[in-house]
């Protein structure tokens, strides 16, 4: 995920302090990985340097100065371009799993057991996500569904590979 674009997008609804930005990010997108303050401030310095945000106000207090950031016109254009751009689909060719299966067959190990072990692990993760969906709000459900559909796609590949192990063994041992 592009943290810079996400923070810029959050700024479109109005100026915010770094702390508010972090809180908004964590609330909407940081379920598993909350942002570090360091990431927020380093990202804001970069956006500032590139003219995509500006310092809207500085509050002096007992501690360090608190800067309030606002998005610039260039920043709004940048967010719009990012949202309009399709993400590159990742085909995951030559994945680690594929490599493991081929190596298991080449070294005459039990590739079916490798696939069974992986299926169990995928299902374990899917159970956790399903439980989180049952107890979570709509945002949780959508985030978990995204992960679940990807894991399900992996599992379909596992089943297909399991069904073709004999042929694959012939091919890699030829």
């Amino acid at each position, binding site marked *: 995920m592009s943290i810079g674009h996400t923070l810029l997008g959050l700024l479109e609804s109005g100026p915010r302090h770094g702390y508010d930005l972090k809180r908004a990010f964590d609330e909407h997108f940081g379920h598993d990985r909350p942002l570090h303050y360091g990431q927020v401030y380093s990202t804001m310095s970069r956006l500032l340097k590139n003219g995509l945000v500006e310092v809207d106000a500085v509050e002096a207090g007992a501690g360090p100065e608190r800067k309030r950031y606002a998005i610039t016109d260039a920043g709004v254009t940048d967010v719009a371009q990012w949202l309009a751009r399709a993400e590159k689909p990742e085909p995951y060719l030559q994945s680690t799993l594929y490599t493991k299966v081929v190596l298991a067959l080449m070294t005459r190990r039990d590739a079916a057991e490798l696939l069974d072990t992986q299926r169990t692990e995928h299902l374990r993760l899917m*159970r956790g996500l399903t439980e989180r969906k049952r107890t979570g709000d709509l945002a949780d459900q959508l985030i978990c569904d995204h992960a679940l559909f990807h894991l399900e796609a992996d599992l379909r590949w596992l089943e297909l590979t399991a069904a073709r192990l004999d042929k694959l063994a012939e091919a890699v041992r030829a």
Partner: protein
Amino acid sequence: MIPAGSLLHAVALHKAYGRTPALDGADFSLHPGEVVAVMGPSGSGKSTLLHCLAGIIAPDSGTVRYGDRELTAMSDAERSALRRADFGFVFQFGQLVPELTALENVALPLRLNGTRRRDAERQAREWLERLEVDTVADRRPGEVSGGQGQRVAVARALAGRPRVVFADEPTGALDSLNGERVMSLLTDAARDTRAAVVLVTHEARVAAYSDREVVVRDGIAREGVAAV
């Protein structure tokens, strides 16, 4: 040896249809209150395993024990009585009686077990509410959507307070949103009533509602392997 506390336990099940083997030495065990997914590719024998476990078909060899009783040694009439009293069933489609309303369908297993009509219908209505389909109580299966029909079927399966629910591809004919709602309602209700569930599915997202999985391949059932 039967695993301690096991409710349903099958050993070395063999079953062939003509010369085609469907089960080739399958073992299986189920504990009270647990949800077990039976997975595997089409034609692997998973539905045959479910049918043998539920006493719907008899294996060619091997044993199925339910508590301290051996299903494989019972007469057809005894197995039928056991299914009515202790088991509930949800299939992909077609299990509701088309001439009866949703309420009458859910009340049917209770009536067959000797519950008086008024009590059976009151309990049936509570189950329909629980499965969020009380609004279609007076409609016949042909007049409700696929998702509603499947919820009525789940209500019917659970209404008799079974100790085991056998579900064979219960979401196979539903879209993902309806399928997930049915799974969520089925597993929640089963856990609340301490019913165990044998869930045959080829869909991983459906299997993710289970406590553990058993994979059937070439007629042999394997427990999920723990990652090292």
